């Protein structure tokens, strides 16, 4: 099995989709000639031509609006918004148009578009280039939200997202682009909405998604040294999210920690916790503890950002708390 970087795994999925399906088109700022600000789309213009791989001006509202219109007219657009923070400019097209069209037109059309965008800190990019805003999208009926945690999943989930008839927000992690990982070649089912047990354990369930899954795994490794066996669930997608898988794990471990990089308050973890405090209540032997970013903008300075971001220590502390 080959090792590839996260960015390359995404590139491969895009290349494959463009090769296989003439209705797939790709556009965004600096994605064509320059191959993308993080190199993710390198080579695709040369290979697939300028009709289908296009650079756009800096017009996020129209980039996403055009993706919706194109998706309603026979294409499968994959658009890139350079940093997730800039999606703020495109929210109307996503929320009022893409998310609603199928429903409000009575199922007459689908909106098979994918919006790729990187979230997350770790590169000192400051308060307007580091946010994790996925909770916004997860709250909107009609959108799907996928957040892969490793190269192999990124590849398979992106292909699934492009094939999906509904609009998908595909969230990458800028600090992970150069991460290497094996490309799984099993027939294992990598589907939007299906979680994966990233590590089995019996003492506590840690639910996470995206890059934070790796933090959870590192924490689990350390915990194992103290004979605490944490089960780590990688949600893979947060809308829909695999509540059955979480409940099943909880019914074995009876303790739950939720981890993500986004701000804890009103974040994705809130829904998971709330749901388990309802349908999983009888399984719970301890308070549900969430680990995420504190309620503050992502700070610039290295020392500040490193204290801001969730890390293994914080996960370990949370696990110890629910086991206390």
């Amino acid at each position: 099995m080959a090792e590839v970087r996260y960015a390359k795994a995404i590139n491969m999925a895009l290349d494959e989709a463009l090769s296989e399906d003439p209705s797939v088109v790709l556009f965004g700022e600096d994605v064509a000639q320059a191959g993308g600000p993080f190199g993710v789309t390198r080579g695709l213009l040369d290979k697939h031509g300028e009709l289908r791989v296009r650079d756009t001006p800096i017009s996020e509202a129209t980039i996403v609006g055009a993706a919706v219109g194109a998706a309603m007219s026979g294409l499968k657009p994959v658009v890139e918004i350079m940093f997730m923070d800039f999606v703020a400019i495109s929210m109307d097209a996503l929320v009022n148009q893409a998310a609603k069209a199928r429903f409000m037109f009575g199922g007459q059309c689908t909106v098979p578009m994918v919006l790729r965008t990187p979230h997350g800190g770790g590169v000192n990019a400051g308060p307007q280039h580091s946010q994790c805003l996925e909770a916004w999208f997860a709250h909107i009926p009609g959108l799907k939200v996928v957040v892969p945690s490793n190269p192999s999943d990124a590849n398979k989930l992106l292909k699934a997202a492009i094939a999906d008839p509904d609009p998908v927000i595909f969230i990458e992690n800028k600090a992970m682009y150069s991460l290497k990982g094996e490309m799984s070649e099993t027939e294992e089912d990598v589907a939007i909405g299906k979680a994966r047990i990233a590590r089995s354990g019996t003492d506590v369930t840690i639910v996470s998604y995206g890059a934070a899954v790796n933090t959870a795994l590192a924490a689990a490794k350390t915990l194992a040294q103290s004979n605490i066996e944490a089960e780590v669930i990688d949600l893979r997608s947060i809308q829909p999210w695999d509540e059955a898988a979480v409940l099943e794990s909880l019914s074995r471990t009876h303790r739950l920690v939720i981890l993500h990089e986004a701000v804890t308050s009103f974040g994705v973890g809130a829904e998971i916790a709330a749901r388990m405090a309802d349908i999983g209540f009888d399984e719970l032997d301890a308070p549900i503890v969430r680990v995420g970013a504190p309620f503050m903008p992502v700070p610039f300075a290295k020392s500040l950002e490193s204290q801001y971001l969730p890390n293994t220590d914080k996960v370990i502390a949370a696990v110890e708390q629910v086991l206390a």
Partner: protein
Amino acid sequence: MKSTKAGKPASKSQLLDFYERMLLVREAENKLSSLFADGEVPGFIHLSIGQEAVCVGVTAALEKQDTLASNHRGHGHALSKGVELESFFLEIMGKEEGICGGRGGSMHVADMSVGMLGANGIVGAGIPLAIGSALAHQVRKNDAIAVVFFGDGALAEGVLHESFNLAALWKLPVLFVCENNGWSEFSPANLQFVANVRDLAKAFDIPSQCVDGNEILDVHKAAEELTAAARRGDGPQLLECITHRVRGHFEGDPQKYRTEEEMTSLSEHDPITKFEKLVATKRITKKEMQSVRDKINQKISNAVDAGRGGSDPDFERARTDVYTAGEGL
């Protein structure tokens, strides 16, 4: 649907066709107005009475595979693009059998089978949708074009600017149609927007025409020329139609903000009266016109009956139809 070659005088059958289409929009909206007053139409409705020459004149220059993005005042756009009348009334009356299952209503009438991409509740939002649709036509090389209708009020939204630029940059087959009725809700256009839309288009090298939007032959001729240009690959085109909103912003709006003078002058501009005068001097008889009117009235009355006969939408069906794969997902 396309019926005249640009420049050629309209034939009798075409004139009758224009008349029928305009009357259809007019009478459908008159009926919606009374249904609304009687509580049979819920929500907000925005009527385009007085503006019928624009939608009819433009859509008569379109082919079926052409796509159309609309705005909140979209009844005329929908009907003249070919949305079936009964499913239109059923929708606006909130019925299961409505074209959108009663989920959208007046502000969201869409019919993909005739390229009607939807009315839109968000001012300006249809503009980038049309850009995307035009992109699809360009990539798919299907000879179709996209058209978008927007009001003078939408000129102030940034997406117009972005879309002018992108359309020009990519030479997209799109026709921008500005229905300039001088009002944006309760505010007059001159207090809303400083520029002339044609000057803006010009800055982006987008050719344009401005016509009296209440003269259907003028609208149609311009639309024929501009759609032909867009279709043959000349890139985006703009048509500004000066017109008049006869009713309030929405039904129920008492329009206190308009002068009596303006209100009384509206009838002078009525595109249907104008048209009737014009054709009376041609070969169309009173009787022929009356028979068109009768036909339309019958159609509307059937549609209202159909609307009343529709059923309340099924909640479970709606709830599980948010995603393509349905609830199970």
